[in-house]
């Protein structure tokens, strides 16, 4: 039963058109409609386009590998490339990214190797890349929890007088969590150099946004925290890049946090174990497929004469090379060490863990006698 059967939620009905710089047809919008933001330079847009194409190829490849059983799970970001890539592209090397499980292509765009991104989804370990080197926190699974980590890190940077900014990615469903509220509020009260990028892909697994909230947009919530909020066309890479860049600059210059909502759509299922036909119409998916973020930017670049056939072929080749690399590394058998289970839990060694490690080692050796002996000794 829905609590709002009788009344129509404000969501979507009263939502204003999202801010965009390039429209569905690939044309630049009028200056009067651009909300004061200007189109990024053409080289920047070309860079975004290249990364989006490569990211999609990666995403499609990993989804295929998951269907083949090579990975335990993979939450796809197909259709959300503009949000993911633009958010990362707006960051400086010293900045930190706090991603979720859906943001693997953001990691890819920030230079993480496929094998390291996919280590957790293959099941090798709970996370698999070098956090300090890439300035990326582990992909968070509990919703909105990482937003508080971003606020804390940004605040620490501010206390140390570093010019580091933290950017966190969230989904629309995550904004219902208490941790999202606390993160928005702490960030605003502490004037933390942090940027919240909410990818409104319209579904929290199966639940649509109008069952999450009753206000017009997620961005509207910013006013309640005392920070700026922007409602952006999340399939317009130019607009996402322009708005996120402005927010990052603002944070870096002591202006505090910003909440950005990118309106987009999750084309794929939540994960490979989800069946989206149970909760949404194929026609809706098709409609959003027609609003593809890559095609939109491609049309614009071609119209500007900035994307030659050679360039497109070069990008396609790079995407195929990455797909091949991804296939190869996921075809290799993962090397896992059962005894590593005990290695990292504590910085200070524990006797009880050493005993359990020895127990498992003996079990692995198939040394039943040694194992039984340990037990007997310990009960004496």
């Amino acid at each position, binding site marked *: 039963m829905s609590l709002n059967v009788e009344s129509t939620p404000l969501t979507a009905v009263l939502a204003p058109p999202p801010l965009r710089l390039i429209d569905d047809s690939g044309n630049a919008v009028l200056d009067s409609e651009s909300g004061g933001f200007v189109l990024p330079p053409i080289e920047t847009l070309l860079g975004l386009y290249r990364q989006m194409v490569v990211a999609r190829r990666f995403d499609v490849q990993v989804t295929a590998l998951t269907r083949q059983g090579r990975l335990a799970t993979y939450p796809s970001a197909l259709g959300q490339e503009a949000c993911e890539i633009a958010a990362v592209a707006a960051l400086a090397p010293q900045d930190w990214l706090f991603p979720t499980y859906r943001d693997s292509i953001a990691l890819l765009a920030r230079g993480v190797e496929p094998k390291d991104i996919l280590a957790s989804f293959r099941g090798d*370990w*709970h*996370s698999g890349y*070098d*956090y*300090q080197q890439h300035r990326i*926190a*582990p992909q968070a699974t*509990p919703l909105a*929890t990482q*937003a*508080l*980590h*971003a*606020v*804390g*890190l*940004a*605040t*620490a*940077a501010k*206390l*140390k007088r570093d010019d*580091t900014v*933290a950017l966190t990615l969230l989904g629309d469903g995550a904004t219902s969590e*208490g*941790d999202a509220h*606390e*993160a928005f*509020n*702490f960030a605003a*009260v502490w004037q933390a150099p942090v940027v919240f990028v909410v990818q409104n892909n319209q579904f929290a697994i199966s639940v649509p946004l109008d069952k999450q909230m009753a206000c017009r947009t997620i961005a509207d919530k910013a006013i309640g925290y005392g920070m700026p909020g922007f409602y952006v066309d999340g399939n317009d890479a130019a607009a996402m890049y322009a708005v996120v860049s402005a927010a990052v600059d603002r944070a870096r210059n002591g202006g505090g946090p910003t909440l950005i909502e990118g309106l987009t759509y999750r084309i794929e299922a939540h994960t490979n174990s989800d069946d989206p036909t149970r909760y949404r119409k194929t026609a809706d998916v098709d409609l959003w497929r027609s609003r593809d973020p890559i095609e939109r930017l491609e049309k614009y670049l071609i119209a500007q004469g900035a994307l030659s056939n050679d360039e497109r072929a070069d990008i396609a080749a790079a995407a195929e090379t990455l797909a091949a690399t991804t296939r190869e590394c996921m075809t290799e058998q993962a090397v896992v060490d059962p005894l*590593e289970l005990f*290695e*990292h*839990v*504590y*910085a*200070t060694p*524990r*006797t*009880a863990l050493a005993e359990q490690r020895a127990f498992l080692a003996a079990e692995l050796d198939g040394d039943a006698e040694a194992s039984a002996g340990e037990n007997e000794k*310990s*009960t*004496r």
Partner: protein
Amino acid sequence: MSPQQTLETGTGVRAPENLTLAAALNAAIRDAMVDDPTVVLFGEDVGPLGGVFRVTDGLYAEFGETRVSDSPLAEAGIVGTAIGMAMYGLRPVVEMQFDAFSYPAFQQIVSHVAKMRNRTRGKVSLPIVIRIPYAGDIGGVEHHSDSSEAYWTATPGLTVVSPSNPADAYSMLREAIASDDPVIFMEPKSRYWSKASLALPVQTEPLNRAVVLREGSDVTLIAYGPTVKTALATAEQGLAEGLSIEVIDLRTLSPFDDETVGASVRKTGRAAIVHEAAQFGGYGAEVAARLTERNFFYLAAPILRITGFDIPYPSPKLEEYFLPTPDRILAALSTWEWS
């Protein structure tokens, strides 16, 4: 009491003074902040007010807003932001104002504080101290007297400690702040005003070690935090009844000091654990189980648990019926067959 020695630190050795447990904690945070500029303190009311128990009294004035700050009233937010700060090289000391008010932070503690080091294969340590005033016997209204230690001790990745006296309060908090592992630092509220003469900085036994506070030959009575005083009183009363009770202060609940406690139990052959928390699934169950597994053939009787009842913590006028007392403990010990 536990052996003590004074530490040489940047804060210098001071003349002995009569300090409450709360004042010892205050001195530990202050000295840690003097010695290590990465130590920061925040939470609810810890700034100008100095905390509702005055544990952070004067620190805001001494170190200023950048290192000591009042946060918004949100415990998940406090712990969650502490995680981010620790990832950036700070050592946050945060306060959950009362035991039961730590529950909004449960997810951040269990899913991130406890797991980050393991998740990142040791690359991201979280040197965070989460201070939790806990337990009852202070006439507190509902939600102000919970003993929540078993939630934390059941969580791999957390170190859980609870001092029972001012010397340990100082020494253990200094060590907790210096530790690269996250520490749940459980402060027995009813002992905040207990006093001892201390020449700070004082160093007692290291974390992770239990201490035999009083030697005895008939029974090992195991306690921690607020029930240590009860256990010592029980031993004194037991002596009058011809019972020689050895009292152990666990100090650290996770990890458990099997060596010290096991040696005592093998010596006396009888053991009982005392805590305020409810019995079912409580910390005492783990103590009884592991001591039995490891020392069964030395035991003359089953290990007893003298604990709070399996009910929510009662209101002030009823708490005296809930809390373990020396009489109740001695009555429990008398149920054993004594040959």
